[in-house]
């Protein structure tokens, strides 16, 4: 799997995003390679969606974004003007969301929206653009694609809308597809089908897929590489087999213990749980944000904690990689 890995497509170094007195992202590092699915996983408020929006240049106006590096295929995104950025967006990098109606305009047919994206970036005739749209709908396994071009979003089911949104994101052959919880609102059987589609498209088109999710099951099945976020930081990052085989940060271990797994977790035993709540953190916060919930906390956790890396597996914690003991405080 890692042999097929290409070069870095997106590099994020020390990304910081704040909204007033709230530090949403506090020095996140991410590298997304060509042709790889990179899952960013964490619970609500960990900063995963905001990180994705920052990459796309889609943050709300009251957000303050700073970074040491934010580079997409050699271009410094921090120096691009809004118009240069909008030329990249929808063309070489595209994004899909949990709610398809975020991307689809209810007042236009599927065909005209898809054609517009293509013609804005690539020009060409409407007929050409519609042909491409039809091909992509078929590739996204939309039934009767020609017919769909003339339909409005409200005439489609939830699963179909999701497919149309994916097809639209692919109109200009992006190198990076950012997907923010694309299947969270769907029923389980439909979720499986949409994920299968994304996995096939990623592989067939050689996409770099940045998949934002809270669901560790989705991560395990989709990811080549995983970054776990907690309270605005990346606390662990590793190839998927390493992360699930040898989770190291106490938060990662704690989170994995919380997931009920049919046939694996004794039904008469309580699930692992992480007592307490995710802290709300200001920009001046220092040290490990997990320390108040951690079963292994010690005094030096209150100081800046260094990133430890062992090959491709890294984590931000003072513990050695082979530590043992409870990951979180007892309930």
């Amino acid at each position, binding site marked *: 799997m890692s042999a097929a890995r290409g070069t870095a497509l997106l590099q994020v170094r020390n990304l910081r995003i704040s909204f007033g007195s709230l530090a949403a992202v506090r020095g996140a590092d991410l590298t997304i390679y060509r042709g790889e699915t990179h899952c960013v996983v964490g619970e609500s408020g960990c900063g995963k969606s905001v990180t994705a929006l920052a990459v796309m240049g889609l943050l709300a106006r009251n957000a303050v974004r700073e970074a040491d590096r934010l580079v997409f295929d050699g271009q410094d995104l921090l120096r691009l003007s809004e118009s240069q950025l909008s030329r990249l967006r929808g063309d070489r990098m595209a994004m899909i969301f949990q709610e398809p109606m975020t991307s689809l305009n209810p007042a236009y047919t599927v065909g005209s929206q898809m054609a517009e994206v293509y013609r804005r970036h690539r020009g060409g005739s409407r007929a050409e653009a519609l042909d491409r749209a039809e091909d992509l709908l078929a590739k996204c396994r939309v039934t009767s694609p020609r017919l769909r071009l003339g339909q409005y979003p409200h005439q489609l089911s939830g699963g179909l809308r999701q497919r149309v949104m994916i097809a639209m994101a692919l109109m200009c052959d992006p190198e990076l597809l950012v997907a923010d919880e694309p299947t969270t609102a769907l*029923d389980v*059987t439909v979720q499986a089908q949409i994920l299968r589609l994304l996995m096939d498209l990623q592989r067939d088109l050689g996409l770099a897929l940045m998949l934002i999710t809270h669901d560790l099951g989705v991560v*395990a099945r989709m990811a080549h590489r995983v970054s776990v976020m907690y309270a605005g930081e990346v606390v662990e990052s590793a190839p998927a*087999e390493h992360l699930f085989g040898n989770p190291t940060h106490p938060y990662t271990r704690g989170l*994995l213990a919380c*997931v009920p797994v*049919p046939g694996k977790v004794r039904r008469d035993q309580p699930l*692992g749980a992480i007592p307490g709540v995710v802290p709300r953190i200001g920009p001046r916060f220092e040290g490990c944000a997990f320390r108040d919930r951690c079963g292994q906390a010690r005094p030096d956790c209150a100081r800046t904690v260094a990133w430890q890396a062992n090959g491709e597996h890294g984590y931000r914690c003072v513990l050695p990689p082979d530590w043992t003991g409870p990951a979180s405080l007892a*309930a």
Partner: protein
Amino acid sequence: MSAPAIELRGLTRHFRVKTGLFGEVRHVVAVDGVSFAVPAGGVLGVVGESGCGKSTLARVILGLLPPTSGDVLVDGQRLSTLDRRARARLIQPVFQDPFSSLNPRRRIRDIVALPLVAQGGIAEAEIRRRVDEGLERVGLDPTMGERLPAQLSGGQRQRVAIARALELRPRIVICDEPTSALDVSVQAQILNLLAELRRDLGLTYLFISHNLAVVEHVATEVAVMYLGRIVERRPTEALFAAPEHPYTKALLASVLTPEPGLGIPDVGLGDLMPDPANIPPGCRFHPRCPAALDRCRTEPPQPRTGRGIEVECHLATV
């Protein structure tokens, strides 16, 4: 042998909805002839996708909606013969969204006290004592009682909803997607709390969820619902070990466990979502069923029972 905690006999609930510009009336069959019994102290997990009728089922059992036909018996008594206060003492709900199920303008203490106040005739000091006790039982400090819902996290709010549900010491709690809006670490806390309360208070749960892994963890028995009918019902372990109904098989295949390298399964159901206003003839699952035969298109399968299995499928082996 005591009466089952919950018993449904041919429960049906229809809705009339007006659709389109000219208000054409259509019948939505949300729950269609559901019968089952949940023994005292058991946990029946009800699983199914959106529109299968599981939430309507919960609302009918709670007495929030009258059935179109059929009966609900709670603790051996016909629900329709009980008044609201008596019903509240027997059966209580915990809903999905702790953000909308708590009145944002009332203090936590008053929210938890409401069922006691509604019963009438309980002294204020007694209410105060029971609210403190109730908050402690769900792992909240009684001082939280002075706060407003907005000052609590999602998990804490769900604890408040559970405390409120237990104030009258009901025998039965209907949990409708109680952890679906919560983060995974908080979900685990709430599931553990529900398990502990059931053990300590001898509660019976009807546990409705779309998350099969969660249901597997909490339920003693599972009912799979599809377009208003229970298509398979059996003890949890047996259902997960050897599902009979093709829909159950597809649901189980869709569970994504955190095991890398397994990929995403092909559940083979297609995108065609079931529509309760337009129930197909024959077996209602046949348009999505990968194993459908000709007779499935015309002939509705009858419930079959055997070996502790209850299943509605022409292909079933019982």
